[in-house]
């Protein structure tokens, strides 16, 4: 296992954006733009904000842990309707036909793993190994991904056509007081 390195939040943010912008067009066939992002220094906060949600709609979140020069967990949150649509299209199904839930879980888990792997690759300059966990899927309407202990939390909002995706990161890395 490589030594944990310290990265600035900006560097991680930049790599995450690059990873999402490489993976999404290849899988979903749509360009993705970064709308906004934020950082949370958890140990300075009395409350932990959840990944922001826009409306009380059904959501699906893919979670994949990664371990390399940086370790943590990536969450990708989709509106369920959006996930159903792109997974259905990948399987050449009619938009009106809702794909099987297991297929959607598979798609969301796989794309989350691809982004996590790409993030690890970018931060490790393609040299240091980055291992990935199996994906876990969460479904619900009001979802909060919360950290434990002293980890950094950051999130990014992306726009993909008329749809939105929220990427949340929990980062466990070498402590750097200047970050």
């Amino acid at each position: 296992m490589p030594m944990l390195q310290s990265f600035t939040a900006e560097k991680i943010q930049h790599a995450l954006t690059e990873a999402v912008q490489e993976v999404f067009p290849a899988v979903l066939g749509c360009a993705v733009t970064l709308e906004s992002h934020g950082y949370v220094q958890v140990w300075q906060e009395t409350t932990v904000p959840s990944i922001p949600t826009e409306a009380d709609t059904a959501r699906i979140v893919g979670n994949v842990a990664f371990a390399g020069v940086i370790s943590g967990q990536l969450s990708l949150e989709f509106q369920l309707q959006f996930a159903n649509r792109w997974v259905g299209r990948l399987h050449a199904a009619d938009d009106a036909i809702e794909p099987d839930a297991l297929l959607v879980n598979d798609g969301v888990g796989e794309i989350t793993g691809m982004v996590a792997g790409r993030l690890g690759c970018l931060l490790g300059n393609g040299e240091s190994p980055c291992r990935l966990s199996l994906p876990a899927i969460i479904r619900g309407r009001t979802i909060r991904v919360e950290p434990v202990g002293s980890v950094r939390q950051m999130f990014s909002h992306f726009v993909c056509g008329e749809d939105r995706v929220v990427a949340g990161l929990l980062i466990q890395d070498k402590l750097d007081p200047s970050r």
Partner: protein
Amino acid sequence: MITGRKILTVDDSEMVRMMVMQVFMPHLVAVIEAGNGLEGLAQAERENPDLIFLDITMPVMDGIAMLQRLKGDPVLRKIPVVVLTAESGRVHTDRMIDLGAYACLNKPFKAAELIELTKHILVGELPEPNSSSSPPGCR
């Protein structure tokens, strides 16, 4: 031409198997699939594919174990294997090449990249897997 050839995709993700199929469908390449290494070995024995695209992290039998079993078999060892993985890193890639993989591609793959590599392996001269003319490891 790769038309008429047979490819085996071994991945626990149905989405990835579908993506591989969609890449090769227009080229009239037969794509057979397996959801884990054990099924992959059975399919390789039964179907004798020209090329195998292999995931690493899978249930039942992972890609590393399947690759080791393939390369230990006097018949199946001749089938070229391309590893498709979301995991990255030179050490990781080198290990796959050492185990006998022809190349290692990061997910998500580009359709053109997959076709180009397939043509190179199946139609072009097939360099020794570990020779300097082999494609670079993970790309």
